[in-house]
């Protein structure tokens, strides 16, 4: 009989600290599965962000480094440059990658660093209590946009993946979502591609994943999935960007 379910070797057997309905746990598992399938556990080095996923290294069972808030791609750049034989990836939230770390993101991409980036867009700052993120939608209420995001005051949702696609150093960008099993399968496919690209020395690859945050969206886990499907994807269309 074929074994169709098993605990990934690259994922520790432990309970996570994430809220019910959060997308981080799903993404950690997908990454662990991809690491197993590509047989790279012994050479992968993950960079955890500052954000809800700061202790991702307590869940993954391979070498990891923490990076200061927003600096994951500077840390990853150096690691990959001195250890080309390793597979280096960053795992970053929207605040980490597209607000405080925008500079590091753009320049690592523009240098065409041979890195894999997993970018979790939950349209909010989870760790600090639900403040506006650069990706917060117009009219979306957050702790710092109590009346909803107003374009005149807070600008528009930042489409950093589309911006990065303009750079010649960037080889692959895809936006996926976690709002249904089918989308989760697509997410895994994209993440595997982004890792494979590094294995094959193709260059800078990024997967943006729309991910639910029921706690700070103030709705139930199932409503959160619907909100991604019906509202968030209109601002952040899914599919291959580059």
């Amino acid at each position, binding site marked *: 009989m074929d074994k169709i379910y098993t605990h990934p070797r690259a994922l520790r057997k432990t309970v996570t600290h994430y809220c019910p309905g959060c997308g981080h746990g799903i993404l950690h598992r997908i990454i662990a599965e991809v690491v197993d399938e590509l047989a790279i556990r012994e050479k992968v080095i993950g960079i955890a962000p500052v954000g809800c996923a700061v202790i991702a290294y307590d869940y993954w069972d391979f070498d*990891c480094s*923490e990076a200061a808030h927003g*600096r994951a791609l500077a840390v990853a750049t*150096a*690691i990959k440059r001195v*250890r080309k034989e*390793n597979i280096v990836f960053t795992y970053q939230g929207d605040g980490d990658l597209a607000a405080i770390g925008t500079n*590091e993101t*753009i320049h690592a991409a523009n240098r065409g660093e041979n890195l894999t980036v997993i970018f979790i867009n939950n349209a909010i700052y989870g760790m600090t209590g639900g403040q506006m993120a650069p990706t917060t939608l117009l009219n979306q209420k957050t702790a710092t946009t109590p009346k909803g995001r107003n374009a005149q005051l807070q600008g528009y949702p930042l489409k950093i993946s589309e911006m990065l696609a303009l750079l010649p150093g960037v080889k692959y960008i895809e936006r996926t979502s976690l709002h249904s099993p089918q989308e989760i399968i697509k997410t895994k496919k994209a993440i595997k591609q982004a890792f494979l690209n590094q294995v094959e020395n193709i260059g800078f690859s990024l997967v943006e994943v729309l991910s639910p945050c029921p706690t700070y969206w103030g709705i139930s886990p199932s409503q959160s999935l619907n909100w991604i499907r019906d509202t968030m994807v209109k601002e952040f269309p899914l599919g291959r960007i580059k």
Partner: protein
Amino acid sequence: MRQKSIKKILISGNEAIAEGAIRAGCTFYAGYPITPQNELIGYMAEHMQDRGGVFIQAESEVAAINMVYGAAATGVRAMTSSSSPGVSLKQEGISYIAGAELPVVIVNIMRGGPGLGNIWPGQSDYFQATRGGGHGDYRCIVLAPANVQECYDMMILAFNLADQYRNPVLILGDAMLGQMMEPLNTSTKFVIKNVDKSWALTGCKDRKPNIVKSFYMVKGDLEKFNLKLQKKYEALQAKEERWEEFLVKDAKLVLVAYGSMARIAKAAVKTLRLKGKKVGLIRPITLWPFPKQAFKKPKDKYLVVEMSYGQLIEDVKLSLSVNAQVGFIGRAGGGFPSEEEIIVKANKLYNG
């Protein structure tokens, strides 16, 4: 008999630091241009790659310090350099490096401040360098070279100390030292002390995964870690104090100065000695740990000479167990006490 000739090259302090770092086994450098340390990044750009290392011109000092964090996390010898405003930007990163216990060397070729200030020599970043600089209870090992030869020779010490103590090491120079050219003898033998780096990120082949981090969520863990750091700092204070003494033994008045300021102070001491004044000089070489032992047998009088407004003097006073008379002369913002100004002040203190 013919003397064996020692080959010397004419080189700036900035370049001597760069060459010293490469010979000390530095294989990763990231930096962002800023005067007066541009010769350093320029030298690294020219030589690093050809000699098997990695050079990156970073997009900012913030990126540069986080790049050396990453490189050091894999176990290689890594360095960044900058000048005052850029070193201010690096402070968060230095705190993370101290917190993750990574061996990194950081060079600050100080200029005038605050703010954009100017590009003239200064020593106004003394507090920032010796008190940690960023957030949290941590210390950098701080080395202060005073001439081009020392800029070079000190790099092997810097990297060895960084590795041995898993701690950031700061080289604190200034525009005068960075820019001045002097003959350099590069025949000094550098002994790279290889230490165990089994904590480094290399991929978890045949071992448990390694994690480089400074985050401690479980109550009590961070306090425990801080106590471990304090132990390390006590060991550093006990074992690594370094200083130079010049004519201190019979001196009634001892000048205290570091870096290029100490050279001018030394010239003043020599002139005063010619006039029969019993004057000497203590030159701290490690600014942290501060050479407290140099003040163990206190003299009657001290004169602290700085290119800043009363920073070094605090450590001198803290190191004195008795109430000695401690005079001060300092200028900043591009000015520095001249030999003549020092002599006037020293005479007053000596005779007073």
